[in-house]
């Protein structure tokens, strides 16, 4: 039996954040896919990135709930198992059509996460009350996040869309499998961008002065920061206009959340001094 190491009181309850994150991620995924289809454009692919940001915000709070118990292996391990189990659920979901895929990813991730949580809690005997629930949540988070990043890169989350390049967009070579999201292993970059973004906020903010709003702002900042390289990688797949929209959304979102995070850090700091360069003493 393990005991809580960190205080968990204060801030929005975890259930609220979970439902908000889940619904926001699903709505953003469907908005991106639906609007792209409706206007036959790539412009709305950035909604995938917003889905990833919603999942990361939810993920930071889920990881906080689990890691408050002191799992002994460090916070990053939860980020890694989140994406490790999420990628499997996400890729099986890409076999289904666009209106089933996010739901299938959710269901498969719940199953995989629940079994991993059972293994960790009962077979390995971690005996942490929130273990099963947290493992289920982080698997769903990993799956939705990766699906969102995939949609932002390629405008689609179907296996065919992710494993082939659509011909003739930027005058690139005709359809090939080697240069695609999966074929060129861009999925590995998205994987590690998501894994680091989801584990970093709590890892950076934990401690006696932990405040939920500061951690969540950092989580959103990490999400938008991950969107920026994804937006640049989408140059290979999307039209120029769509790429510009993605870059503007991610840079603007990052700038806003980062400045907000700085304000919150100044609020929570004991004192704030503008550091000056160390001056060399003269005359020696």
């Amino acid at each position, binding site marked *: 039996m393990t005991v809580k190491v960190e205080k968990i009181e204060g801030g929005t309850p975890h259930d609220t954040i979970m439902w908000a994150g889940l619904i926001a991620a699903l709505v953003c995924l469907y908005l991106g896919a639906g609007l792209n289809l409706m206007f036959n454009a790539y412009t709305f692919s950035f909604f995938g990135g917003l889905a990833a940001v919603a999942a990361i915000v939810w993920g930071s709070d889920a990881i906080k709930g689990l890691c408050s118990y002191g799992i002994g292996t*460090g916070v990053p391990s939860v980020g890694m198992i989140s994406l490790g189990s999420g990628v499997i659920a996400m890729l099986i979901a890409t076999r289904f059509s666009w209106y089933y895929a996010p739901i299938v990813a959710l269901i498969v991730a719940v199953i995989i996460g629940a079994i991993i949580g059972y293994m960790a809690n009962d077979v*390995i005997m971690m005996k942490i009350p929130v273990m099963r629930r947290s493992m289920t949540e982080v698997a769903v988070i990993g799956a939705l996040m990766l699906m969102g990043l995939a949609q932002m890169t390629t405008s689609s989350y179907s296996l065919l869309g992710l494993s082939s390049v659509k011909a003739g967009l930027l005058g690139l070579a005709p359809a090939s499998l080697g240069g695609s999201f999966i074929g060129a292993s861009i999925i590995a970059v998205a994987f590690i961008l998501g894994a680091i973004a989801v584990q970093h906020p709590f890892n950076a903010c934990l401690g006696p002065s932990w405040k939920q709003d500061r951690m969540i702002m950092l989580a959103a900042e990490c999400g938008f920061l991950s969107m920026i390289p994804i937006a640049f990688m989408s140059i290979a797949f999307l039209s120029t206009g769509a790429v510009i929209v993605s870059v503007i959304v991610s840079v603007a979102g990052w700038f806003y959340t980062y400045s907000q995070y700085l304000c919150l850090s100044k609020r929570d700091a004991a004192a704030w001094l503008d550091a000056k360069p160390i001056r060399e003493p003269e005359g020696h």
Partner: protein
Amino acid sequence: MTVTPKPTGGVGMNPVANALSIILLIAIIGAVWILFGGYTLVFKALIAVILGGALIGFGVHFVPVGGAPAAMGQAPGIATGVAMLAAGAGLAGLFGGAFAVPLGLMTAVVAGGIGGALMMAITCLFVTLIYTYGMGIPSASGKVKVDPITGDSQAEYKSQGTEGHGLPFSSFAGGVIGGFLGGVGGTLIYYALLKVYEDRLPALLAASASAVVPVAVSLAGIFAVGLFLVNAVLAAYNITGTTEGFHDPKFSRFPRAIVASLAASAVCGIVAILVAAM
């Protein structure tokens, strides 16, 4: 805020949970046997994935993980977390093995094992150099009086108030064994999934067998990474933080990690195979 000691992890095994895990494992294997017509490529791949996952889960227990106390010279081992260390060794092995896949299963698996072992050996060597010449601390185990391999006495070199420090020889050797097992397991998973995808993807993507190779390699690689991380983190939870290697008392906990790895790999493996085989 309540300050409590680090979790020690439960002792013993939970018979009900273990039985349920084994039933789940057998059910998945049986379902694949029935659905895919007996001893086929898919069935062989699933068995290889499960074996690979168990090897990873077992191998992690050999790796000397020190965590933050090791960085301060207060505990023996490499100064980082289990997940990072195991993933580093396993992925180095996986990349080594992936390049050797055209030479056949045995060559690929051995190359993967050597890749992982080499990565751990280099890490342990430089960790020891830094501990000895950079931080000025000798290598001494806190868990055993005499090094089980070399027979050197440890207690005289151990500072008071620490659990040992540096990287004793047995931990070094354990790290290399752990890296080997992790590399073998990762490569086995990669090889099995690659064969399934190379077989099934041409029909799925309506492309020639040579055109789907990048997609098959990438899919198998990302699933191998995902399965590796799942098994490594489960084993890390079993160790709960730090271990010295195979001479650490925590090593005796490995059976439950193997049960957990078998069941988790079966679940993740069947989903990964179904991506192409469905």
